[in-house]
């Protein structure tokens, strides 16, 4: 029995050592490659970006603020750092980290309907915690379990969709994302008869919104708070939409303007689903923004 147990402990020890060594080696290899990817957060973490238009928000900003078209209209580089499920709190951390390593943007565009989002993206961005002070601080506060898991296995940082995207976009940029399909007739029909619903805002996101406004003011960066279009049939069922927008306005402060385009696109063909524009809608919407002066920036910010 004693010999058996010794053999067991030896095997467990050998396996643990192999797992540990391989984990550290593999993670070190990934760590080495990550900053060289063309994926949006690698670009931001690498630093050295020129003054540009920086876009933040959730999937509505990913699809509603189509970078190539905005870039054409603005005449300056556009970097879309929005991502699916990005809350305002995470957007704030991403912005702070961005400002540490890059030139201040001429315009920061924040799609503010992400006040609804939970903080799931903190874990999603795990592989960037090492490179981003504000994100890491947020993770310390909000994701202690993942922090502990990372101490055990460094490769765990590369678990999830974002590392896969970083790998896929290793050699080509990711700024052309947009939904390239139309809303299905069934979903459109279902939307017309869907039940009324209430929109919500998380207090921590509203507080983060206030801090983003203050940060932009301090750094003399033009900040555009925007609501990109919703499918009108869906938006009509949001019972508290006016009160909700008023709540966001209050959180942003009395002097911050919210560019409300929630009902600006009426054609369902320009939507991929209830809340996302598609490629047919993205380009005309960018044109509309440019025509409205949304992409005009202060001369003061240009100097920085």
């Amino acid at each position, binding site marked *: *029995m004693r010999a*058996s*147990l010794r*053999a*067991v402990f030896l*095997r467990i020890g*050998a*396996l643990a050592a*192999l*797992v540990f060594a*391989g*984990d550290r080696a*593999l993670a070190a290899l990934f760590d080495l490659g990550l900053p060289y990817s063309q994926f949006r957060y690698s670009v931001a973490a690498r630093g050295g970006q020129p003054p540009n238009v920086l876009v933040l928000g959730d999937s509505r900003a990913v699809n509603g603020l189509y970078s190539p078209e905005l870039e054409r209209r603005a005449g300056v580089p556009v970097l879309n750092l929005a991502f699916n499920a990005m809350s305002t709190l995470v957007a704030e951390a991403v912005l702070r980290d961005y400002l540490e390593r890059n030139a201040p943007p001429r315009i920061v565009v924040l799609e503010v309907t992400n006040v609804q989002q939970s903080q799931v993206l903190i874990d999603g961005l795990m592989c960037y915690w090492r490179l981003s002070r504000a994100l890491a601080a947020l993770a310390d506060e909000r994701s202690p379990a993942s922090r502990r*898991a990372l101490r055990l*296995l460094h*490769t*765990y940082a*590369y*678990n999830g*969709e974002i590392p*896969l*995207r970083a790998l*896929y976009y290793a050699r080509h940029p990711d700024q052309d994302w947009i939904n*390239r*399909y139309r809303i*299905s007739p*069934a*979903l459109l029909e*279902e939307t017309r008869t869907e039940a009324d619903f209430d929109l919500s805002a998380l207090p921590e996101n509203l507080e983060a919104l206030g801090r983003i406004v203050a940060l932009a003011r301090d750094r003399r960066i033009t900040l555009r708070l925007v609501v990109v279009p919703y499918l009108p049939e869906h938006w009509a069922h949001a019972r508290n939409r006016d009160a909700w927008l008023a709540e966001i306005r209050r959180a942003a402060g009395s002097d911050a303007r919210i560019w409300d385009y929630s009902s600006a696109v009426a054609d369902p063909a320009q939507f991929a689903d209830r809340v996302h524009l598609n490629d047919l809608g993205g380009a005309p919407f960018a044109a509309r923004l440019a025509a409205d002066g949304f992409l005009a920036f202060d001369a003061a910010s240009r100097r920085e």
Partner: protein
Amino acid sequence: MLFNSLAFLVFFPLFLAAYLASRGAVRLWLTLFASYFFYAWWDWRLLPLLWFQTGLDFFVARYLHRMPVTGPRRRLLAVSLGTNLALLGFFKYFHFGVESARGLARAFGFELPEVTLSILLPVGISFYTFQSMSYVIDVYRGEVEPEPSLLRFATSVALFVHLVAGPIVRARHLLPQLRVDQAFDVERATGGFEQALWGFFKKIAVADSLAPLVDAQFLSPGTHDGMSLLLAVYFYAFQVYCDFSGYTDIALGCAKILGYDLGVNFDRPYFASSFSDFWRRWHISLSSWLRDYLYISLGGNRRGAARTYVNLMLTMLIGGLWHGASWTFVAWGGLHGSYLVLERALRPELGRALRALRAPPALVRGVSALLVFHAVCLAWIFFRAQSFGTAAEVIRGIATRTELSFAQVTNKFLVTKAIVLIAILVAVEALSFRTSAVARLRARPALRFAAAALIVWGIALLGTFSGANFIYFQF
């Protein structure tokens, strides 16, 4: 307690240390208490039900053995089976029965009152009820001597590795192993550890990564394109397989570490080249239970072709209902029953046609496996769907809205990851048919270590740590 929880990762080593340090009755008591603790972690209020069924079947079996007269024996058996089935029926099928009766009455123009009870479904009830019933039937048939020790019998029913989601281990298989102190064997324990690790990979990396992709499509199939729905059906086939066989691998692996052999429950079912072959490979402990205690009891294939078909169909319909209190499960069983009946009826003609074609056997096997897999996938739609309406919408969507394009498929990165994971699984299973290669791998400790380490890194990199329940817990 879930196998894929931190609690279990603490529980099992602690239990193992105490288990190895103990002997005889102390070890049995320890195992029994640990098993009840494992069960009570989920909900302690349903432990008395487990105790009641265990006690009932233990004493019924003892009396059955002593009774020489056929009539009273049969009545006693009926009491045991009736009580077990009544409990299973009440806890699992009460609302289903009421709703079905109301639906039937409504079809004839009557309105029955609505009856709703707040019933908690005891986890694992279908598994331990079937296990306990098989023991009583075996004693009744004279195939097994009744177990004299209540402690040992209770441990065999409640052993935590198989208690909540199988495999359904027959008393005749487990009780002899509990009669002796299983010596700790390093090689067997290493094999068990490897099997459990592979089970964790199947559950955490494959099944839980596929789950959200499947859920999204089955939630509102009418709003998705055909290609997304088709992928969701394929993904579900692998989700349910990896979820359940992953659980089984962890259970069997842990049992091996403790020194018990609980048999084989899955044997690469998607490589099956016929429907009967599929059922020899899928959830073997249930299919063999249904064969031995239901199909054969109904007469099996001994009463002519027509009766064989009826028996097959009945067995599969009941097997479907065993999985859950819904007509969609019955439809799933019915589809599999139809497949088995058709296969049996057409087997001679098919054999002649294939011989006439002179196709290479490997090609025939490959094409057959593909056909069987797709028919099984069709049945999975009913298994997964919440209603017939949803199932019909999925089938309609695939039939009418499928283009050979992935343009409308959302979450492409997660879909790609899912396809890669399935490819890994299929490759590993295909390689496992090469027994000489497997033997060579097993003979080289360095390769085994590397394989185990690869699995750990695979889980860390590709796992989905949602703490999701195992699908078969609900059954």
